């Protein structure tokens, strides 16, 4: 296998203006080295702001590192953050030709690949539409199609496949695999760990502009998942009249780690700041992406109103039976008896971590399934 990309000790920082005369230095990439070979797919994972896109931009030759060396042999075709530099005022057809010219093709050469691009994108009837009239999905489809037909030596894909429909996503992945076997090297960024695990040969985990871990996909992904458990990502936010005030939220396990069949018990302490008599208590939990798993409250689930004391406590418990391992956030709230006006509502006030299976399965839960293979 031959080396096609060599990155040695690159640094890149930029100034962010925080006011008229004040600015802050952001070190986006802080000493990264890696190699990429032909026929290889290298994935880069990490939190937002860990330097993934900047690193890819440097490999693509879009940005120059402040320090360090980048050697790239062959044609790099970047597809970064859904963009491929289309001009929204031009039609899809004109944009294909413009892109061809950007890639250094003659008009004749672009003509030769044009039909194949259109067929792959399945957008034949839309080629005379302006790009600004395209949906995001169509945009990505056209972008990916034209990028793939420029016959890249190195293809850079940043969070692109999250948009298209399932059918097109599969087609893309198949094509990526095909060109990979023909010698193209691929750099891939995705937040979908399932995809990363299934398709990568090697994974790099970035944190604060440095490589935290590099190597076997599943091992690196596991490190990343553990890292996520240690850093709450969802922002706490609070609203409400304050007539009832949540003073403390306690979980029955101090380390916040639970198994699927273990009971999670939460007690919520409150105090009364007004003459509010009765109301509703509710909680919700969401996964790390903010998707609400469920949101029970005392009225809907038990048809009970709480009679408020000066100081009191509400305790609830549940078993997270079928949920996937990961981090979950708890929202707790007191509402008035109509369930419309919040007294105190704290989003993502607490969190717990479900342990168990090493690998995350697709989706948010594991359904008990009976398999029959005939």
């Amino acid at each position, binding site marked *: 296998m031959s080396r096609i990309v060599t990155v040695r000790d690159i640094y890149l920082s*930029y100034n962010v203006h925080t006011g008229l005369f004040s600015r802050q230095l952001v070190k986006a990439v802080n000493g990264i080295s890696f190699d990429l070979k032909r026929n290889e797919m290298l994935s880069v994972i990490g939190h937002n702001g860990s330097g993934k896109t900047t690193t890819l931009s440097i490999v693509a030759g879009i*940005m120059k590192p402040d320090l360090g060396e980048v050697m790239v042999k062959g044609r790099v075709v970047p*597809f970064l953050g859904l*963009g491929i530099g289309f001009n929204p005022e031009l039609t899809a057809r004109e944009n294909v030709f*413009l892109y061809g*010219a950007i890639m250094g093709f003659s*008009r004749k050469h672009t003509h030769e690949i044009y039909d194949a691009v259109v067929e792959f994108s399945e957008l034949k009837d839309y080629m005379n539409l302006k790009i600004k009239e395209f949906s995001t999905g169509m945009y990505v489809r056209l972008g990916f199609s034209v990028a793939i037909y420029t016959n890249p030596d190195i293809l850079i894909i940043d969070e692109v496949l999250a948009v298209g429909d399932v059918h097109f996503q599969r087609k893309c992945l198949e094509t990526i695999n095909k060109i990979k076997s023909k010698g193209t090297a691929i750099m891939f960024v995705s937040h979908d760990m399932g995809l990363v695990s299934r398709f990568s040969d090697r994974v790099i985990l970035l944190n604060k502009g440095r490589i935290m871990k590099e190597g076997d996909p599943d091992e690196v992904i596991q490190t990343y998942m553990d890292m996520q458990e240690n850093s709450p990502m969802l922002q706490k936010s609070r609203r409400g009249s304050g007539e009832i005030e949540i003073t403390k939220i306690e979980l029955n396990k101090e380390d916040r780690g639970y198994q699927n069949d273990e009971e999670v018990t939460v007690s919520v302490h409150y105090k009364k700041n007004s003459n509010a008599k009765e109301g509703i208590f509710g909680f919700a939990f969401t996964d790390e992406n903010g998707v609400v798993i469920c949101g029970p409250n005392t009225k809907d689930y038990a048809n009970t109103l709480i009679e408020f004391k000066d100081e009191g406590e509400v305790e609830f418990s549940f078993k997270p039976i079928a949920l996937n391992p990961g981090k979950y956030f708890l929202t707790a709230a007191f509402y008035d008896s109509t369930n419309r006006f919040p007294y105190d509502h704290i989003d993502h006030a607490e969190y717990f971590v479900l342990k168990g299976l090493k690998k995350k399965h697709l989706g948010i839960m594991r359904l008990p399934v009976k398999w029959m293979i005939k």
Partner: protein
Amino acid sequence: MDFFTRNANLLLELIKSDLKSKYKNTILGFLWILFEPLFIMVILYLVFNKFIRFQMDHYPMFILAGVTIWRFFINTTSQSIFIFYRNREMILKVRIPRLLLPFSVVLSNLVITFCEYIIYFILFFITGMKFSWTMLLFFPYLLLFALFTAGVSIILALIYPFFRDIKPGWEIFSQALFFLCPIFYPFEIVPYRFIHLYLLNPVAVFVLGVHDMLYYGVITDTTILVNSVFFALTFFIVGIFLFMINEEKMVKSI
């Protein structure tokens, strides 16, 4: 030059897309290139032949010669000023020689201006003015002016990502420049003691040159020619130089 031959195809596509997006949604399309100078001519004719008069023959033609080159300058610079910013999608997503962006604006406007001067020549014959072959020297002179405009455009486009104030600032400044050009009045009315100050305005120098070639039909005098070359080369070289040292910074801040 090597830069241009290597990127000729891309430059051509950029110019085409620039012209297309300018005229695409209009009913008249590319006919606007013809109509604009004609309209201006009609208005100039009505206003300056019937209401206000300087004691000059073919006064509207005098204005048209100057106003057209001014329009080239002002249209190009005001489009270029946010060319990097407006194309940040392209700059940040694919690798292209970014200097092509201001160049494509200059060249697409040059195409339009060229057509407008063709109209000028047609009107020139219709109004029965006296043609001389030296008038054709105007076309290389227009290229020289394009070089100057390209320099100014690159400098403005570089400043914009860092200081947005440059846009309103340039609008006011260019208005001042306009009135300090001998477009609506002959150069002769500028008081003698201000002449040196007046000729510090590069656009005024070029307008003088254009008048000599297109209106008076003479070869412009050496001072104007030397000054034109000086301004064109200085601004162009300074523009390219500033671009080379600030390109990476600009990419980071758009």
